[in-house]
């Protein structure tokens, strides 16, 4: 201990608490020399996860949460409307959904007419209608959705999983993100959404870009042939191995030698996985790649399928860009906005579910769809838009470990607030980790003196969703 006479008494007090054991690196097999090596989860779980983010805050009321009372009472005042719910001030007048609803599948799931392709799969999808978050503001809400906390500086779900699982295919990153397919910019918060926070930066997402070289520095420049690069690498390898002999017990140097080899293989393998042109015509057609509007997001869904097929652990796709009207943020006109964004995404999502099933990947892949919050039952602005509503929204889950056709929780008769079995984002995260094979209370990382986890000090697995 640091006891030493003549120093401030306070210093002595601080000494007295220096009693801990060597800090644990965490409870997964993380190793900084092989940060991406494949690791086992706590128990068996899905191999991969695809999370489709309806960026901007999709309306539950116009998609999956059918509210007959809302439809009946269009224009009437919403009792107990809270002016603090939205970002702007809402009118307090109920706004019926402009869309027709119908029941689908054996589960009789209600869905909106703007989702014809996805609606075919309702019996394989599980819905949480009682989601809520704490922030009604895009930026903090996106952080909350991604990291569990509305503040900055914490790792997102994909980073936690990459930390926990490593990557199964060393030629590909473990965590991939794709942003708006139509070039309308990154979501609010930009790349900060998929940062790894205090986890090593190797666990942040690799962005696969919509246009140009899909991954930075992935491709060998055209001016240099593979043979030339191979020769260069061979020479470096030989010199590195000689250097290594002088430091026989320094395994970090080995890791670095291996990383050069891996990089060389990666640039050969990865472009194939990211290319969709060589997919058969019927697959391209399934994903809507002949459709002038659906083809952009459809292509990303197809890439997502190829990525998880190749062993990528976590793929996150953002539908919608930066500006309000460039995303699901339908402040002005919910009809126009959501019709547009549903048209862009519905076919691709339906195709993804279909394709995963026909390839036998459905059981080992979890598909999640949801955004940072829902929207208000009352209108705003010109009377045709909806404001942010963190008190009620719907997420759905499909694939490995999920019981199909299930509806968990409920909102009130107008869909204004989650009232039955409300589930905060922490619960959604706990469930995702569970499905990936992790006890969310045990997947931890020590940073600045504290063992952090994705679910902070909360989170409960939503058991009703589980098969």
């Amino acid at each position, binding site marked *: 201990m640091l006891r030493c006479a003549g120093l*401030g008494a*306070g210093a002595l007090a601080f000494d007295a608490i220096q009693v801990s054991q060597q800090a644990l690196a965490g409870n997964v097999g993380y190793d900084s020399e092989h940060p991406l090596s494949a690791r086992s989860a706590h128990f068996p779980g899905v191999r991969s996860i695809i999370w489709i983010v309806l960026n901007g805050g999709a309306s539950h009321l116009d998609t999956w949460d059918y509210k007959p009372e809302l439809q009946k009472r269009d224009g009437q005042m919403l009792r107990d409307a809270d002016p603090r719910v939205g970002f702007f001030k809402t009118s307090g007048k109920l706004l019926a959904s402009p869309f027709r609803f119908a029941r689908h599948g054996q589960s009789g799931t209600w869905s909106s007419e703007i989702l014809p392709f996805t609606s075919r799969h309702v019996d394989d999808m599980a819905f949480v209608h009682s989601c809520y978050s704490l922030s009604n*503001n895009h930026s903090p809400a996106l952080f909350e959705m991604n990291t569990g906390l509305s503040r900055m500086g914490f790792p997102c779900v994909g980073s936690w999983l990459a930390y926990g699982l490593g990557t199964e295919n060393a030629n590909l990153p473990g965590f991939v993100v794709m942003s708006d397919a139509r070039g309308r910019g990154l979501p609010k918060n930009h790349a900060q959404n998929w940062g790894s926070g205090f986890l090593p930066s190797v666990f942040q997402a690799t962005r696969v870009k919509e246009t140009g070289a899909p991954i930075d520095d992935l491709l060998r420049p055209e001016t240099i042939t593979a043979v030339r690069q191979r020769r260069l690498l061979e020479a470096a390898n030989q010199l590195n191995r000689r250097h290594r002999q002088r430091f026989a017990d320094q395994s970090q140097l080995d890791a670095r030698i291996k990383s050069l080899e891996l*990089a060389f293989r990666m640039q050969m393998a990865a472009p194939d996985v990211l290319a969709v042109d060589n997919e058969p015509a019927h697959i391209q057609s399934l994903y809507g790649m002949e459709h002038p509007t659906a083809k952009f997001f459809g292509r990303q869904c197809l890439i997502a399928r190829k990525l998880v097929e190749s062993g990528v652990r976590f793929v996150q796709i953002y539908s919608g860009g930066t500006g309000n009207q460039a995303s699901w943020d339908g402040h002005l006109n919910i009809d126009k906005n959501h019709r547009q964004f549903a048209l862009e995404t519905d076919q691709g999502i339906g195709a993804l579910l279909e394709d995963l099933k026909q390839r036998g990947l459905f059981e080992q892949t979890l598909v999640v769809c949801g955004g940072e919050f829902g929207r208000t039952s009352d209108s705003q602005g010109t009377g045709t838009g909806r404001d942010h509503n963190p008190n009620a929204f719907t997420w759905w889950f499909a694939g490995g470990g999920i019981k199909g056709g299930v509806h968990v929780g409920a909102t009130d008769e107008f869909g204004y607030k989650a009232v039955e079995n409300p589930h905060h984002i922490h619960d959604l995260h706990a469930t995702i980790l569970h499905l990936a094979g992790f006890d969310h209370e045990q997947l931890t990382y020590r940073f600045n003196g504290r063992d952090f986890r994705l679910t902070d000090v909360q989170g409960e697995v939503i058991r009703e969703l589980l098969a």
Partner: protein
Amino acid sequence: MRHAVGSLADWNQTVDRLLGDPRFGERWGRHWLDVARFAESDGFEMDYDRKHAWRYRDFVIRSLNQDMPFDQFVRLQLAGDQLKPDDPWAVVATGFLVAGVENRIQTRKDFVQQRYDKLDDFTSTTGTALLGLTIGCARCHDHKYDPISQDEYYSFTAAFAATVSATRPLKTSAGDWTIYAAAESADKRIMMQVTAEPSFKNLPSFPASVRFLVRGDPDDARDVVSTGFPSFLVGTDVQQTRWFSKLDGRPGRVALARWITDPRGGAGHVLARVIVNRLWHHHFGRGLVTTPNDFGSRGDRPTHPQLLDWLATELIRDGWRLKPIHRLILTSATYRMGYQLHRASLRDDAIHAEDSEHPDLTNRLLWRREPRRLDAEAIRDNLVSVSGRLNHAMFGPGTLDQNVARRSVYLRVKRSKLIPLLQLFDSPDSLQTIGRRSTTTTAPQALMMLNNPFVRDSADQVRRRLAPGKAERSAAFIDQGFLLCVGRVPSRDEHQLATALLAPGTPESQRDFCHMLLCLNEFLYVE
């Protein structure tokens, strides 16, 4: 690179020269910027630029080069605007407090929460960066491991009750500046911010005071609290009032600055211990306490407690100047230790034939020097340097363009657009204070070294430097390449390898040879 073997006097002279080099402040300043979570943008939705935040970076570099006493360095960063309002650098120093993220698009629902998040950033960063004290863990409940109560958290936080970030003009002898620094809210109120919607009128505000929040929840706010310091860091016979005398209406952070630097009764000795450990950490790759941001019970115990304490005592005794401590460390026998294999360190190979029987496999006792990977900035600076482009211009606004040939410490830190090359090699994201970077080894790093235009361009430049104007395949070319990139001449074997690579005798093969040198472990690791 191995240091030249010479006399101790030569060594001491080299140390003095390097400590006096302006590059010293750039290198060590970057370490402090990690601790200060320094960046030049707001973060959050739009990640607005802080166009004038670079002056704080310059303050850090200048101060370290001038060997400003560390207690003063700390006082200015906490309260320079209050202590020396007429000294521009003292005001700029408070850029430390406001370097964290700030959301300027708030809602009526979340603006109070956001204010408490900001206060938590001030408090947590101050505690962790300066004292290795994870006080932020007591925001919602008493600290689970260290003796800090939730009450004490809020008392500490009250030191910043009216502290806000401000971009403002400042008249100085060097001309009119615009600075980004801390200030006290003029009307003692905290107002909701919503920069994206200038049409919003009658924004709500609340008094700039700190209330005790049950479970950290702003909707469950209790009494207003006044500034105070954790009792376990206050001497037993000491009244906290001593740090509050003659405040003359100035905020609690002035008292905080006094307490935290007071080695007799305040937290000064802990402050000293934490900073000398940071120096040790960067010199050896591992601190005497290996968790430099956590000296509490969850952190690691010091490997050499008396040494740590002695260094801290020396620092205080010598007027808080850091350079003498650097000198002590650098001229020590421990620092000058070379690399040796486990067995070589033992007297009898026969007894300790197995590595696992070595008494100190992990080198906790520092019986040898192990190779270390350079950190991100040094890797980039080296690339610029070997290609002969390094621009030594100091200070001033930075740039987001990584191709600019200035040292990396002058690249702009924009939170949503971090420089990929630096990020890949584990530079921090500037969101929370970082005492120890991770050191990862990944394929994307290797892809960058192989394919990135900046690296390829560096290889071209190296070639041009070595063989200006003509394509030659000479022994001298190979020797010079090794000397330039890895600081030594090649062995005969290595020479043969290089000769084979250069066999085509083309500019391309020369370029590839140079590029190959940049891909060597020796280029990334120092011995």
